């Protein structure tokens, strides 16, 4: 983990309220691993004061490029949105534990919703590079709001989109889709993020089929480096920090 200065290469709206930012930062691109967190300082003034945490979306060590997908939500992301190619950006990271592929695993499933999809894309990319089969269950409010679908298809993931508009994103349907994938491909690990609802659903399948599953959590943060104990979540081992002990936890460890 280090302080870095990056240079914005591109920063565009990709769908509804989603933005995609590409940053030149060789050091970070080299250091970061799948699922880790990077902290962006928004502007140089005291409002907003704290860095904003984002999951690494993609990174390319050879090109020295890192990418995020973000939703414009409040004053921090409003500032990030205004960055133009060539602008400098102050980055701290990478922080936390990454997603890891178990030795010998043949197929995995990633399952994400909304901007949460961003955090599981890099592990899918890694798996595909190693020839591992990837089922990607991607959920969104509308079909348009599902990010990374094309990217994941292009690299050979089996992509299944579900959405609220067509009533396909409910827990029953998603559970069924996940079970089908488990049965068809022999899923060895499941990677998910965010909401408790999806987490609990994944935990169900994980227990039923005895498949290790991992979840990436979010909490309000201050330091991002594990010193303030501001970002704890409840786990079976007491309060643990999301920024350092997480954001990726074994699904059995956390209290969903």
């Amino acid at each position, binding site marked *: 983990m280090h*302080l870095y200065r990056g240079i914005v290469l591109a920063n565009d709206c990709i769908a509804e309220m989603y933005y995609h930012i590409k940053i030149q930062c060789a050091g970070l691109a080299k250091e970061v691993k799948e699922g880790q967190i990077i902290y962006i300082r928004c502007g140089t003034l005291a*409002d907003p004061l704290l860095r904003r945490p984002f999951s690494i979306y993609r990174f390319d060590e050879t090109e020295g490029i890192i990418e995020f997908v973000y939703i414009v939500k409040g004053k921090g992301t409003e500032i990030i949105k205004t960055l133009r190619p060539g602008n400098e950006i102050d980055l701290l990271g990478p922080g936390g534990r990454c997603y890891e592929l178990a030795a010998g695993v043949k197929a995995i499933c990633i399952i994400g919703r909304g901007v949460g999809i961003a955090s599981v894309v890099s592990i899918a990319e890694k798996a595909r590079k190693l020839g591992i089969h990837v089922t990607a269950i991607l959920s969104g409010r509308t079909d348009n709001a599902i990010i990374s679908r094309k990217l994941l298809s292009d690299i050979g993931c089996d992509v299944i989109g579900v959405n609220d508009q067509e009533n396909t994103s409910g827990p029953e349907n998603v559970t069924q889709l996940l079970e089908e994938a488990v049965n068809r491909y022999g899923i060895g690990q499941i990677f998910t993020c965010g909401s408790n609802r999806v987490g609990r659903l994944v935990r169900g399948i994980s227990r039923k089929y005895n498949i290790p599953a991992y979840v990436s959590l979010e909490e*309000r943060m201050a330091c991002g480096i594990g*010193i303030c104990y501001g970002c704890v979540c409840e786990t079976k081992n007491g309060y643990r920090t999301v920024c350092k002990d997480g954001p990726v936890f074994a699904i059995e460890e956390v209290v969903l």
Partner: protein
Amino acid sequence: MQKPDLRVKLGSLTLQNPVMPASGTFGVETCKLCDIKKIGAILPKSVTLHPRQGNKPPRVAETTGGMLNAVGIQNKGLDYFIEEILPFYMPYAMPMIVSISAYSVDEFKRMVERLEGLDGIAAIELNISCPNLEAGGKAFGMNSGATYQIVKEVKALTGKVIIPKLTPNVEDITVIAKAAEEAGADAVALTNTFLGMAIDIKSKKPKLGNIIGGLSGPAIKPISLRMVWQTAQKIKIPVIGGGGIQNWEDAIEYLLAGASAIQVGTANFTNPNSMVEIVEGIEQYMLQHSIKSVEEIIGGLMIG
């Protein structure tokens, strides 16, 4: 010009410069992110006698120019601290100031007794902003009698430098500082955080699991600075000032107001390198203004 002298004294202690972390905003991880040997002292997060879970999340909330925290001193207790954390810092040459927190006078005393025997601890900061369970839950530091008693009893147990850290949630902080001085404190540190709250209007719930928390960051600087100035005029022992220090300019303000050393808290979160940059900034300022010793700045506020 020759290299300016940044050394300051806190009682019998000499620091290579006046910059140190504020407890709870610094840790082992900080040392990996910046050239920590450049700062004046090491001051880890407050430790309690027994392990503490801390408060339920969310524990932090950003506010305008500041942040609220209600961590509740999550830590693994004094034994773990002594065995696992302290050794990490031992290779560093800077004085180690251990911050301790307790819920009764007796607990404070037991902790000081434990620390007294240990080498490599230069000073003990008494975080007396925690509720005094023997006296109905009001923080020790909100009462001059309780402050006097703790300092007095603790000083009888140790030769180490004793620094009570005062809470600003009082009517007149100089009265508390005076009590600490009379009881034999070697220095006082101020201020800790201000009690505050924030509400999420969507959920209608408090933004902190604990409802109320401590406000820190640049928002509070004018109030803490005022308290440091008032206190420095009323007592003879050194004042360690802090609250909202973001950069070297803020640090100079505190020194001018009479602080002999300064603590950097929330700024460590925005920029983990801020303490080092503050040391460098003070040095540059002294070079530019031909100030030979940082002691010339301390209390140099010009009035009238």
